[in-house]
């Protein structure tokens, strides 16, 4: 091959550049101590690094959650342990005063002691962690335990601040006699706004978690799942699965759908977007549940979305909506079931006797999503509710970390009402009622057992969180080492490689310096 001068120069320069760029690459990795400085250095490692970092960040959150749970649990535990001590004292008093040697005077004095035990017990049952009551369930607006027992009550109805319905004009009134055994919060949500006669609503007996309770299974938000083509979208809903034992079809009469709880006047509001993204809305009201069929709802869906849409229902109650229009389809549907507002404006909230009466002055209307709620107390000393407080302590695992006041101190959640027992004991002492005093001994024993049971529950919870914490520690260690593997540069390896490159680079330089020295010109002398 004929070698020309430019070939020599080009080869030298190209190789020099190549070695230099590799040298630079190594330098960057050594200086940053990372082998992945940008995604293209190692795309797979880059993806891993981001995933791992997200995992570590999430673990940090779980760790903080566990620490908070631990604080709460240990406080609960110590309060329960104090409560146990108080019960021991109460029992000692009861044992001492139940004997024949006790007399009116000693029992009178003992009743004072019991009163101070009750005061202490109330104070510790009402204690807080941070700004939340330990034994109140989720309710935090009043102290969970009162000093005197109350009768079953339905509190005053309350309205949300953001309601369209005029606030503070006394337009909503609670009534009825509460027959429930636990404290509950009832809520009413307006689905279709407007004047009283036109409005529809849903209600909840657990403060708004589940609307309409077990009585009305409609009202689920339909979620969109993508079909295979561009024009097809399937929207899934949960209609009760059976129609009197047979599969639901379009011809099924509403009355025969078990558990759906629909009635005359039940309204379905349809809201969504059609294939080109335009928002559409419509509604269908069951005029007569004994003659109306599912098909009426499907027809209304088709009418709402336009002529290119077909709606069908399968045996599991899944409604499928298909759009035959070509092109980008953005079909979306939210189907909400709701009940008509009765004439007179009084709605029954379930079967426990709670009623709310709406009085809309002329011209005042309900707005969509207006919220009204009312607390109903079953009576007794406890004002809190039975809600669990929970936090996520590891991926996909929530831990309920509270013991409710009902569980720890009342008969409805536990086996004996501790405050009632203590107050009964005090009453018996005051009344010098020896029979009554010994009658409370058994209750006090059960009360002690009840507290011990809850203490052991605390222990279980603490164990649970300890286990979660240990596995988080393990996971963190693994993630950190994986991150290091994916990301960190091995200094030893890179130092070696760098010195190799240095040698290569030096060789390139000395070759470059020699390049002009070997030519015939050096030998042409005059």
């Amino acid at each position, binding site marked *: 091959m004929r070698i020309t001068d430019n070939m020599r120069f080009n080869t030298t320069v190209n190789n020099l550049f190549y070695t230099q760029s590799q040298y630079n690459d190594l330098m960057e990795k050594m200086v940053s101590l990372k082998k992945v400085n940008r995604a293209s250095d190692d795309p797979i490692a880059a*993806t891993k690094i*981001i995933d791992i970092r997200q995992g570590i960040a999430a673990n940090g959150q779980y760790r903080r959650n566990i620490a908070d749970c631990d604080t709460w649990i240990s406080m609960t535990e110590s309060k329960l342990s104090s409560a146990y001590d108080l019960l021991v004292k109460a029992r000692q008093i009861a044992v001492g005063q139940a004997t024949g040697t006790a007399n009116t005077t000693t029992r009178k004095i003992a009743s004072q002691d019991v009163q101070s035990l009750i005061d202490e017990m109330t104070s510790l049952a009402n204690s807080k962690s941070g700004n939340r009551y330990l034994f109140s369930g989720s309710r935090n607006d009043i102290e969970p335990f009162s000093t005197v027992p109350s009768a079953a009550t339905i509190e005053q109805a309350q309205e949300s*601040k953001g309601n369209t319905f005029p606030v503070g004009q006394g337009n909503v009134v609670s009534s009825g006699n509460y027959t429930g055994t636990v404290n509950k919060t009832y*809520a009413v949500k307006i689905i279709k706004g407007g004047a009283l006669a036109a409005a529809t609503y849903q209600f909840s007996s657990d403060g*708004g*978690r589940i609307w309409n309770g077990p009585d009305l299974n409609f009202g689920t*938000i339909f979620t969109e799942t993508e079909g295979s083509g561009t024009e097809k979208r399937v929207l899934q809903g949960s209609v009760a699965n059976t129609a009197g034992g047979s599969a639901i079809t379009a011809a099924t009469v509403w009355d025969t759908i078990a558990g759906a709880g629909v009635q005359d006047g039940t309204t379905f509001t349809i809201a969504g977007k059609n294939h080109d993204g335009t928002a559409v809305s419509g509604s269908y009201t069951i005029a007569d549940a004994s003659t109306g069929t599912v098909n009426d709802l499907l027809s209304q869906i088709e009418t709402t979305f336009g002529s290119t849409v077909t709606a069908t229902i399968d045996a599991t109650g899944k409604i499928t909506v298909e759009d035959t229009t070509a092109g980008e389809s953005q079909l979306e549907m939210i189907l909400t079931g709701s009940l008509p507002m009765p004439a007179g404006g009084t709605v029954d909230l379930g079967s426990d006797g709670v009623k709310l009466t709406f009085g809309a002055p002329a011209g005042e209307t309900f707005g969509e999503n207006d919220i009204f709620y009312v607390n109903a107390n079953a009576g007794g000393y406890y004002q809190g509710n039975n809600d669990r407080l*929970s936090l*996520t302590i590891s991926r996909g695992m929530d831990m309920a970390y509270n013991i409710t006041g009902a569980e720890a101190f009342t008969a409805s959640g536990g086996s004996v009402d501790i405050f009632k027992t203590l107050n009964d004991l005090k009453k018996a002492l005051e009344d010098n009622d020896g029979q009554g005093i010994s009658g409370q001994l058994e209750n006090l024993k059960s009360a002690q057992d009840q507290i011990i049971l809850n203490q052991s529950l605390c222990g279980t919870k603490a164990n649970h969180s300890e286990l979660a914490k240990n596995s988080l520690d393990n996971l963190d260690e693994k993630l950190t080492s994986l991150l290091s593997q994916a990301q960190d540069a091995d200094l030893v390896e890179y130092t070696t490689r760098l010195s190799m490159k240095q040698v290569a680079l030096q060789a390139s330089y000395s070759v470059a310096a020699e390049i002009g020295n070997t030519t*015939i010109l050096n030998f042409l002398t005059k």
Partner: protein
Amino acid sequence: MSISSLLFTSRDALISNQMAIDVTGGNIANVNTPGYSRQRTDLKSVGNVNVTGASAQIGVAVSRIERIYDRFIESQIIDQQQNTGYSDALLQGLQNIEVMIDETQGGGISDQLSKFWSSWGDLAKNPGGIVERSALLSTAENLTGSLASYKRNLDAIKTDLNRNIEDTVIQINEKVIEIKDLNKRIIETAGENGDKNGLLDKRTQALKELGALINIRQFENANGTVNAYLSNGETLLQGTQEQALSVQTNADGGCDVYSSNLSDDSVNSSLTRGKLGALIELQGRIIPEYIHYIETFTQSLADRVNELHREGFDAYNNTGVDFFTIPDEENRAGTIQVNSLIVADVNRIAVSTSVIGNGENASNINAIENELLMNSGTSTLSSFLAATVGQIGQQVSMAKTNSDRQTVIANHLDNQRESVSGISIDEEMIRLIKYQMGYNAAGKLVSVVDEMLDTLMALVK
């Protein structure tokens, strides 16, 4: 055969060798001229003298000056230039995108997203806390800010590409005109000796430069001119007639390239190589893909958070309020923001699942972190981002490998061309010595003839 004719012979020898030295000098002078092909003087013997039974050649002349080059290698280089131009421009564009969306160093969207989820987690522990609510608002605003800046950066790259495409098309048109002019001069100098070799070298060089910009097919005509066509057969240059390219902005805010014949269709689809091919691909396919990713991400995030947020109750027990609002459905990532109701009053954040005021809804929203929302239920929002970063990394890494490979091929072809047409100083110096010797010898011949004439004259005396 006369003595004086020997003088003519030596004159021809002097002239011929001088010419050869001239050509060698030209080669030495152009040792570093790009595209220069070495030239060689072809000498031939002329004039003969007949002696009984045989004849001898006694003169020399320059038959022609030959340009040494390999047509096959040259056209391979023009072809290779299209690959090199494409892979270099593609790599540069992809690296621009990579820098904008790199998440491997932290501080990017995935970090903001982690903080956003974490804020919901903190709020779940203290549903009433104004500090936690405000912290959530600010992490949410940081997240929307990051999304908007990510989108802005991609938009900016797309807009920069418009300018780049326009500039490249201008360069292409200029190159085509340069080649057209060279074609014209090559026709004009046809049949003459002129400096046709220099024109041919210049034209080959211009064709290589054109190849680096756009994919062309080129043919040489019988009259020595070249034609250049786009890959779809559209004419770019036919002899001395050129068809300029033009650029028009399209509905997507990108650029379409049109040929100046009256066709309404853009020639974008046939621009697949050269710098312009890379720019069109970046603008038409790659950037829109990343914009699509971030738009999908934004939509899934907003839809799912809103869906849960609407179900929850705020501190005033209102429900049905969206957390994020997206004013422009065409530019979701660029316009997503926290609902103005919430910005005005953080108590509007729906933390609770009931009117009693718990933190469950915040917990539920926090749990979206692990929900498989993306890629038909196979990946979380965060791993979707990670996959996007992985993809750009993969593309850059592949483009880098390709660019390296194309450079190696180009270097190899350049070496081959240099081997054939390049100048070796050693060779030229040796030729110089050779021709100098010839010249010196011819000069010596003159003095010998002179002495012969003197001798002859002395005979006469």
